[in-house]
């Protein structure tokens, strides 16, 4: 085997998957060629990294971190959903509150409006003020003021 032949079989040589015949020939070549011998050492060291990588174990707390990440992600998505609803519900609630205020106001105004048939006269007004505000003696000027205001 020459250098070119060895180089084209170096992977199989390193892994030990070369046939008996080729293996013997490769070993023979390595005894006589220092360049290929050095190359073989370098190559096996690099390919040996695969074996070293295989025994590298992940952090034992990795599962805790993963589960925490999942929890956070789900919380975020739930919050996003909740915030989405808030964004819709907030203006709807305000609009409904304003609308119900208007409706209640107009209904109350209609109900309390005595109408032209139920107008009370001035003496009834004075009686009302007397009884509700505990004013027993209205001066004549006050009576005139009340009558003038009607």
């Amino acid at each position, binding site marked *: 085997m020459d250098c070119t032949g060895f180089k084209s079989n170096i992977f199989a040589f390193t892994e030990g998957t070369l046939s008996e015949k080729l293996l013997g020939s490769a070993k023979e070549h390595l005894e006589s060629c220092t360049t290929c011998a050095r190359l073989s050492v370098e190559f096996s060291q690099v390919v040996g990294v695969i074996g070293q990588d295989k025994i590298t174990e*992940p952090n034992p707390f990795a599962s805790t971190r993963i589960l925490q990440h999942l929890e956070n992600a789900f919380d975020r998505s739930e919050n996003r959903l909740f915030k989405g609803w808030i964004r819709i519900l907030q203006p709807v609630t305000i609009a409904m509150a304003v609308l119900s205020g208007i409706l209640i106001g107009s209904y109350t105004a209609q109900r309390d409006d005595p109408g032209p048939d139920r107008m009370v006269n001035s003496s009834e007004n004075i009686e009302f003020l007397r009884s509700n505000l505990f004013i027993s003696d209205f001066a004549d000027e006050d009576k005139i003021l009340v009558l003038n205001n009607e």
Partner: protein
Amino acid sequence: MTDPELIEGILRRDRNAFQYLVDRYQKQVIKTAYYFVGNMEDAEDLAQEIFLDIINSMKSFKQSSSLATWIYRITVNKSLNMVKKQQRRGFVMRIESIFIHQGDHKNSIENEPSVSPDGEHREKRELLHAAINRLPENQRIAFVLCKYEENSYKQIAEIMKISLPAVESLIHRARLNLQKHLVYHFSEYQKT
């Protein structure tokens, strides 16, 4: 817990099912990601995204293959995406270092201490990973699943959704390409 029970639990968003999924597959996911990205911290960060993806896309899992195979597929795809991102980032950083820190970079190389055994090992890992990352995507996946994960050709065929002869061919070509790249690297190295 069987696979169908686990799938049902995940679809119900059952926290116990999530825990079981993570406990059962975290090692497979992290190690596969690690073989592609070449860094354990990145692999662990990536595993978080992979599990989230697994849970969110469980509805689309048709159960035509085993759950483990499906998880492999997601892990490989996500890992390859991360490698692409790393390569893009590395490219940008290299350009930045050329234009911004030209002088500093030169000084740091000159002042670098002699290579320690750890440094030498890291150098070899980087060389191997660089060689693996230069392989075409299909060859890279087949090679990693075969050499690192020690999956059978049949399993690799299922994960990659290709035939057995195609897997054999991909691994053979991957080995030849790696050999070519490494031999070239060492030949050049020996010249200097």
